[in-house]
């Protein structure tokens, strides 16, 4: 059946060892592919993801390009593909990217969509990097040799908050509301791990909601009845977070809140939600929030917003943090490009896994990119922050 041989190799997608250039890279350009939801329910964060990456590299290209470790200066081309959060489509997009000669895939958002082509990426030796999912699988080097996560795994965020509460020393009753998927589960797991063994902290109520729900009033009523003084709310849907903030105070339940990093925007969420009514609203973060008045004049933020407008075609102040994250991913990639010595995927992966202490633009003081820890994504340090009525301030004590 040697007939099959009459076609160029399909499964050997290139890459491999040697120093012949991998697909998608020339002496003047490198092509990155992003598959992410640009339509459907998750299109909000999805479009933001693309905008941030385009903003970063658009600005760099305008400056003439990025200097690579092999001495050449290249412009970065970004090809985007809409997967609508459908795993089957993200796989199709990946196959399309391979045929479109993309050097690496990355930054895309979504756990199932990234999982759907993880095996294909491995078998074709195509980098699938800085993916925006807190799924730890992508940062496990053994299982995912061609992958790397970008944002802290969900557990880390939950854990950070759990530690804060545990460290407060007081007795606390905690109510938990989480999204019914790995996102919510990860948060809750991290939180519970952190408070394990601490007898003064009890979880008095635990509820879930579906990402497609239009209301979580019932859960809040139920949790309010527990009389908890701490509310761990692992919720990724912006409108629901606003509605929750409003609802809880209406029914007279005013605990300390915890919110995840992606749904804690001061202007888009806390202000309309009336968050000042609560004794404290906490979140974890590693990136500066452009909506926060504190950073209004921050150099990074100003440049970011202008890049976003000019190159990312995104004129609003984003309600999602994903724009910032992908901007940071851009900086991380630049760093990796700068130290890759061959125009190959191998060399790129090596370079990418060798970044330490990079304080990328928009990152908060005290956080940095570190790709050298197996089992952890590029960013694994997070800071707990407390809402101060206008923006956030880093906080190391609870209460």
């Amino acid at each position, binding site marked *: 059946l040697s007939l099959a041989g009459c076609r160029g190799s399909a*499964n050997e997608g290139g890459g491999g060892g040697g120093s012949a250039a991998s697909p998608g890279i020339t002496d003047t350009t490198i092509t990155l592919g992003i598959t992410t939801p640009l339509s459907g329910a998750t299109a909000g964060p999805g479009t933001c993801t693309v905008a941030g990456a385009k903003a970063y590299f658009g600005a760099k290209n305008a400056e003439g390009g990025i200097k690579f470790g092999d001495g050449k200066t290249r412009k970065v081309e970004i090809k985007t593909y*809409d997967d609508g959060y459908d795993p089957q489509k993200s*796989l199709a997009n990946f*196959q399309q990217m391979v045929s479109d000669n993309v050097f690496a895939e990355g930054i895309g958002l979504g*756990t199932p969509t990234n999982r759907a082509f993880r*095996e294909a990426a491995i078998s074709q030796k195509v980098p699938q990097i800085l993916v925006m999912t807190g799924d730890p699988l992508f940062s496990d080097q053994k299982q995912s040799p061609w992958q790397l996560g970008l944002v802290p795994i969900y557990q880390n965020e939950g854990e950070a908050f759990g530690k804060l509460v545990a460290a407060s020393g007081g007795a606390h009753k905690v109510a938990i509301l989480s999204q019914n998927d790995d996102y919510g589960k990860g948060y809750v797991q991290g939180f519970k791990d952190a408070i394990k063994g601490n007898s003064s902290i009890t979880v008095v109520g635990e509820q879930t909601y579906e990402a497609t729900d239009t209301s979580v009033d019932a859960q809040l009523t139920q949790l309010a009845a527990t009389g908890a003084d701490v509310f761990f709310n692992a919720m990724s849907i912006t409108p629901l977070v606003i509605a929750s903030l409003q609802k809880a105070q209406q029914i007279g339940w005013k605990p300390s809140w915890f919110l995840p990093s992606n749904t804690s925007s001061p202007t888009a969420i806390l202000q309309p939600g009336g968050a000042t009514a609560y004794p404290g609203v906490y979140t974890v973060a590693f990136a500066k929030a452009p909506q926060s008045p504190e950073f209004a004049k921050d150099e990074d933020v100003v440049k970011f917003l202008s890049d976003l407008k000019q190159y990312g075609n995104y004129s609003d102040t984003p309600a999602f943090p994903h724009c910032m994250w992908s901007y940071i991913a851009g900086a991380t990639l630049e760093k990796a490009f700068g130290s890759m010595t061959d125009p190959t995927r191998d060399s790129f992966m090596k370079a990418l896994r060798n970044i330490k202490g990079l304080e990328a633009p928009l990152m908060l003081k005290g956080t940095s990119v570190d790709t050298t820890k197996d089992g952890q994504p590029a960013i694994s340090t997070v800071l707990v922050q407390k809402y101060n009525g206008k923006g956030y301030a880093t906080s190391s004590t609870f209460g």
Partner: protein
Amino acid sequence: MATLSSSLRSRGARIALIAVVAIVLLAAPLFMPAIANLTLVRVGVYAVAVLGLNIVMGYAGQVNLGQIFFVGLGAYVTAYGVKQGWNILIVLIAACVIAGIVGLLVALAAARLGGLAIAMVTIALPIVGVPLAKRLDTFTGGSQGISAIFSTAPDWSGLFNDQWQYYIILVVAAAGFLLARALVRGKYGRAFAVVKDNEAVAASMGISPYWTKVLAFTIASVYGGASGFLYLAAVQYTSPETLSFGHSISLLAAMVIGGAGSIVGSLIGGAYYVFVPQFTNAIDPNFTTVSQGVILLAVLFLLPEGLVSLPRVLRRPTRRKPARAAPAGTPPSSAASPDPAPQNPAPASTERHDPS
């Protein structure tokens, strides 16, 4: 379908054509680039799902918004079977049979209802299916999904993976299509059609509307399960997203776009399901929603009976009624009056007698 066969009157020509098509289908993957094969593989996956939907909806007229649930179920069963190391044929049979049994159970209840009520019961399948899949995480891997790989080309074949997948899908889909075609042509095709049209008439012909609906629904579920099996062959991964309600709606759109009540239309529908997102991505990934809406509406607007009606519309036959003998006893014709050509563009909207 009708147009194709009517233009191929002679038996010889038809056999020759079938042979050519078969050879092309068999040989094509050997010469095509991987991406083309992989795309066709996905077309096959959804063509089978659309075919099932077409049987229950296009032929038997029962609105089914839950077909994707059976695709998902088939995919999960397949993933589970593969993980357990079952023989792959057993896995295929299990995917079909389990989906069929669940479909049968649902149909036994749903077929008691009529019209839109069935639509609501079927809508519930994917909507409840997603949280259910998350709950049953020991089988399904929860919201992280589950990978299972069984469609890697074996060494003895000398084929690439994409080619091997193509042949798996070709075999299953071809069998599915041939069986469906035979079924909808004779006795059961007529039974489906009359149940769709008028249940009272169906019943008076000895065709139980209830059991016919159950039959059509069950067949659709079996096809859904088969499609799920193929999904796993193609994607090698499944998660609750696979059975999300939105995809069920897309399947419905694909069926109508391809051609409701047409076997070939199902294939076109599968192609539509796969190609349009790809195409709109190529136009501009930021505008996929708009462009998909435009394409869907444009196609429907031009071809309300689906893409399969294109040849018919292009040929647009003009004909006179076949002559019939004048009934006995009619008076002799007097001189005919001159007849000017008809030119009135007013729409031909005739009074339809709604069936009693």
